């Protein structure tokens, strides 16, 4: 192999390239060798020799084309390798996809679990669909307390949502029960006073069918009843608000174990974030590094492909350049010469080849 021409081509390609370049035609040599064998193979190789003889003038063109094709193929391979990866020196070089997959895999969330001092646990996991799910579980004592608080909150909320009329009536009755004895005493005193005055049976239209004192007392008692009623309404509403507030407090307290659990996960989450950051950083570093090596190889391979393509181009360009002496004599007009002879020779060779293969002999 000519070291000057080591551009990474396979040896057989390099043989063709050398024959084309140095006048030695391995195809022809092979044909000749076959021809010397006689028989069936001599016929075949004879035919191939015919074809070679016919196309020998086109060898440089073929070599140029092959080189160009090789360069094209290499560029294609480089593109594919950049995606799929390759092995260099026995070392597996990952492609972009592999790097991406690895980066994706490396950057995946890593579940973690936090356990508090009171027995609560906070866990994370990735579901099969890729979603991150968290699980929290407080301790049995906390759960019992939470249930108790929940129950209390529900009870208070239920009371707060219930109509206040019943409670108003209850409060009103209690207030009236406190007022009635004094009212009864006043009524009896008035009754005695009226009886002493002989006015027990007095009824006046101007005073609602009673005496002024009775009307005044009835008015006062009615005002007291009204005040009690309004007071009962206000008290019931205040109690309603109080129950709502208590419910709110219990509800808030019922979430306290959970809140404390969540609070306990904050340092762990920070640690997980740091871990995640480190993981992401390493993944990014790995990807960047791998991709930079891959890019360098791609650049080099691209340069090699370009070089090979340049050689092929030059060969083709030389073949189509006429050789003229200083005197102006055209030694070689360039190009493929007599195309009819080439086609005829190739046709003759192919005919003999197919006749040898498929003939009656």
């Amino acid at each position, binding site marked *: 192999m000519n070291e000057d021409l080591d551009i990474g081509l396979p040896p057989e390609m390099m043989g063709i390239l050398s024959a084309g370049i140095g006048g030695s035609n391995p195809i022809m040599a092979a044909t000749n060798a076959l021809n010397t064998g006689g028989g069936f193979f001599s016929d075949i190789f004879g035919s191939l020799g015919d074809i070679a003889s016919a196309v020998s003038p086109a060898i440089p063109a073929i070599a140029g084309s092959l080189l160009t094709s090789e360069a094209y193929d290499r560029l294609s391979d480089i593109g594919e390798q950049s995606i799929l990866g390759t092995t260099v020196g026995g070392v597996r070089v990952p492609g972009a996809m592999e790097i991406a997959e690895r980066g994706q895999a490396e950057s995946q969330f890593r579940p973690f679990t936090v356990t508090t001092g009171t027995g609560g646990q906070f866990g994370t996991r990735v579901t099969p669909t890729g979603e991150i799910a968290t699980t929290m579980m407080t301790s049995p004592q906390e759960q019992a307390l939470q249930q108790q608080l929940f129950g209390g909150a529900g009870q208070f909320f239920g009371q707060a949502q219930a109509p206040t009329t019943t409670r108003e009536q209850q409060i009103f009755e209690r207030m009236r029960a406190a007022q009635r004895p004094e009212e009864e005493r006043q009524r009896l005193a008035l009754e005695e006073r009226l009886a002493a005055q*002989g006015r*027990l049976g*007095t*009824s*006046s*239209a101007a*005073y609602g069918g009673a*005496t*002024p004192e009775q009307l005044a007392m009835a008015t006062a008692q009615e005002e007291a009843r009204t005040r009690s009623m309004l007071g009962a309404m206000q008290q019931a509403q205040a109690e309603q608000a109080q129950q709502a507030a208590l419910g709110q407090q219990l509800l808030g307290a019922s979430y306290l174990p959970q809140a404390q659990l969540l609070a306990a996960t904050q340092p762990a989450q920070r640690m997980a974030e740091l871990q995640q950051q480190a993981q992401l950083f390493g993944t990014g570093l790995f990807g960047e590094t791998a991709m930079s090596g891959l890019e360098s190889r791609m650049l080099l391979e691209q340069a090699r492909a370009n070089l090979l393509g340049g050689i092929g181009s030059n060969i083709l360009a030389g073949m189509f350049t006429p050789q003229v002496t200083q005197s102006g004599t055209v030694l070689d007009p360039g190009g493929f010469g007599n195309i009819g002879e080439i086609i005829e020779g190739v046709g003759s060779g192919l005919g003999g080849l197919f006749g040898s293969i498929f003939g009656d002999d």
Partner: protein
Amino acid sequence: MAQELKSINLVAPAFKGVNTEDSPLAQDPSFAEIADNAVIDKRGRIAARKGHTVVTTNKTVLGTDSLRAIKEFKDNAGNTKIFSVGNNKIISGTTTLVDETPGSYTITADNWKLVTFNDKIYFFQRGYQPLVYDNAGGSVITLSSVSGAAGVTSAMYGNEVLAAYGRLWTADFSSNKSTIYWSDLLIGHDWSGGTSGSIDISKVWPDGYDEIVALAAHNGLLIIFGKHSIVAYQGAEAPATMTLSDTVSGVGCVDRDTVQYTGTDVLFLSHTGLKSFGRTIQEKSMPISSLSGNITKDIIAALQNETQFFRSVYSPEEGFYLLTFTGQDVTYCFDVRGTLENGSYRVTRWPSTKFTSYTRLEDGTLHVGTINGISTYTGYSDNGSGYRFKYYSPSLTFGDSARIKILKKLKPTLVGANNSVVFMKWAYDFDTTYATTEFTVGTQITGFYGESEYTTVEFTGGQLTNQRSLNTTGYGTSVQVGLESEIDGSPLSLQEINVMALIGKLL
């Protein structure tokens, strides 16, 4: 030797009226055992009462019934009208009686009470819707038909009505005997609005239970008469706040029509006789004086026997309070000018007058209701008919009931009695068979100069006094002297009776 005649001079006999309560022997000769159709005249003598002159000339609407009540209506404009009731009708007028009964208003009883109030006259009777009349309307109508009437229900169809303190008050209902209703202020037809009202005094009666009979207003008090007790309220000007002032148990009122105001007192008939409220503003208690203490048993008997109405009237002009038991046709005349030592009024009796109702007009005229319609208490004959004046002394013992008295002479001194026949009577030892002697009083008409002078009448300078000396017979330990005379046109007063007796041996 002839014994000296002993003279007992009965000066102003029966000056103290009738006394049937004390023992005749122990009685003051100033009392009378009988004093019929008599009054105590202005000089303190017993005298014949006045008669009545019928004013009514057309009493068709009255038929054969008597007037049961009379009332003069007078409003602030000076319109006057006499209303009366009888023959189940509301009647107006004096000379010609006019039926004023509202159409479609059926009356089956005549026990109405009539009161004037705020330019209207109201008629109340138990179980009947009250009636009302005013001059603007010009006719008697039911109370409920008055514009603005309210609360006029059967519950307030009372038998008693009182106009006092700016309201009408009514009580004594068919089924409620302890409640009093009062109307709105100055509105006699509003019984449910304004300041109208009621009071049930069933818990106030001092004896636990009683029934309201009559109402009276006196000295700032609302006096509620029960049958057996009396309740007085003060501050009735504002009924809703009036308070019990006093109660009296054991004394009540027999009938609403016996209650009369004398200006300083209220007279009423109780089951034990005529009573009055003393005016005791400064005293806490309310003493009740007995005004018929000299005829208590007679009054009680009359009360028990009465089957019809009680009628009464007070006449300050005549100075008497008349109390008539219409069913028994007897009237007691109480002289209200003063009381005796025992607190009783001097009383005389008017039997068979046929008086069934009275009213005193604003001018002092006393109207009397009879079967003949409306009469005026005047003159000395009952519508042209005479009536018998009687005086009988208590039994006289001349200071010694153990000795026989031989009555020798009676010397009555009479005032008036023009041409009257006078019967002098005497009896001994409580015998009811009287010996009688009579004499005729001469013409006692005062002659004036130039008129019947020296002809048919005696020459007199005023009312004549006639003194006679009459011989008597018989003897006994006690002597009762009497005088009777038919009063028919002329007054008669008994100035004195001088009894001449011979005191005999001891029995």
